[in-house]
C-alpha cells in the first residue's frame, strides 16, 4: 500500500525534472525497483496508472527494471549464494547488499517541440 506514496513521490520528481523543458511531453518513465527494496512492481504499476492522471507524466509509459538482490562480502567482495547464510564462505566476513536494495527514477524520455 505504500506503493501509492512512492508513486506520488515519483510524480513530484518527474514534475521537477520536466520543469526546465517547457512544452515537453513525458513519453517513457524508467524506474529501477530492487528485489529487496520492499515494493511490488505490479502494485507500483497500478498506482502509477491511477496517480499519473493530471500530472506531467499523464499518458507516459512506465518501464520497470526489477533488479535482483546481490549480497557480497564486505571484506573480499566474494558473491554470497542466494538463500545461504549472509557470511562469506571465503573469509568469514559480513555481507553487504551490493544490488537490489534501491528504488530509483533513472531516466525520462521526453518529446520536446523542435524550434
Amino acid at each position, binding site marked *: 500500500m505504500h506503493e501509492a506514496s512512492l508513486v506520488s513521490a515519483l510524480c513530484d*520528481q518527474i514534475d521537477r525534472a520536466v520543469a526546465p523543458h517547457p512544452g515537453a511531453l513525458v513519453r517513457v518513465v524508467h524506474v529501477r525497483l530492487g528485489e529487496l527494496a520492499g515494493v511490488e512492481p505490479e502494485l507500483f504499476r497500478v498506482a502509477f496508472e491511477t496517480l499519473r492522471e493530471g500530472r506531467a507524466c499523464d499518458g507516459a509509459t512506465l518501464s520497470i527494471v526489477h533488479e535482483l538482490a546481490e549480497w557480497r562480502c564486505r571484506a573480499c567482495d566474494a558473491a554470497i549464494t542466494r538463500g545461504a547464510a549472509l557470511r562469506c564462505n571465503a573469509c568469514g566476513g559480513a555481507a553487504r547488499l551490493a544490488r537490489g536494495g534501491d528504488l530509483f*527514477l533513472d531516466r*525520462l524520455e521526453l518529446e520536446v517541440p523542435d524550434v
Partner: protein
Amino acid sequence: MCDVCGCGDPKVVSVDVHASLLSANDHEAAHLRAHFLEDGVTAINLMGSPGSGKTALLEATARALGGRLRLAAVSGDLATTHDADRLALAGIPSAPITTGTACHLDAAMVAGAVHGGVIGEAVRTSDLFFIENVGNLVCPAIYDLGQAANVVALSVTEGIDKPLKYPVMFKAADLVVLTKVDLLPHLRGVSVGAIADALSRVMPTPRLIELSAVDGTGLAAWAEWLMARRDEVRRAPRPAHPHSHGHEHQR
C-alpha cells in the same frame, strides 16, 4: 523538419534523473536525526507484525528502566489511540500518530508529532525515544525516521519462517527481539534455533534477544542493548553548527 509541410518535428530527448524515490523522506529523516543527535536523544524505531508485542515490550521497558532513564514514545496507529494511552499509563510520556489509511510511519509524520507541545519537550529531554511503528512487516521497513536503530519485535507465535517471507524488514533490523518466549513450551515445531537460522539468511549482522514481557526473561539483555545504543549516541560528535542546515519546519 517534417517533409510534408516543413513544420518542426518534435524530437525525443533522454533526461537522466537518477534520484531515489525516497529522497524527500530521507531529507526529512536527516533533519530529525540531526535534532536527535543535538539533543542527545537515542531514537528507536520499533517495528513488527500486528500484535507481536511491541507495546507490551515498551510497558516492560518502563518497568525495567523507567527509574534510571527518561523515556518518551509515539505510537503509529491506523485508527485508535490505545497504544499511546497504554504507554502513558505505564509512565512513558507519549502521543499517538493516527495514520488513517497509511500502513507505515514516515519521517514527516514523526516530525509533525514531536514538533513542539508537551510531547516535543518530553522527546527533547529524553534519553530513549521509542517510535512504535504501525503493526506491519512490509511497509514500515523502507522509511527512515531518523532513528539510531531499528528493532523488530517478532513473536514466537508467528512461526519460524517470517524472516524468509519478509526479508526487507529483517535486512533493515539492527536487533530482533523474539517476544512471548514464555509461550514456547506450548508451540510444537517452533524452536529458537530455527528462527535464528532463518535470520542468518536475511540479516547481515544477526542479533537476537529472547524476551517475555510476562515473566521478565531477557529484559536485562534488552536494557543492556539499549544502554549501549545510548552510549553510542552520546559519544557521537554533535552537529557542529546545530542549525546551519536549512531549517524550515513545515508544520
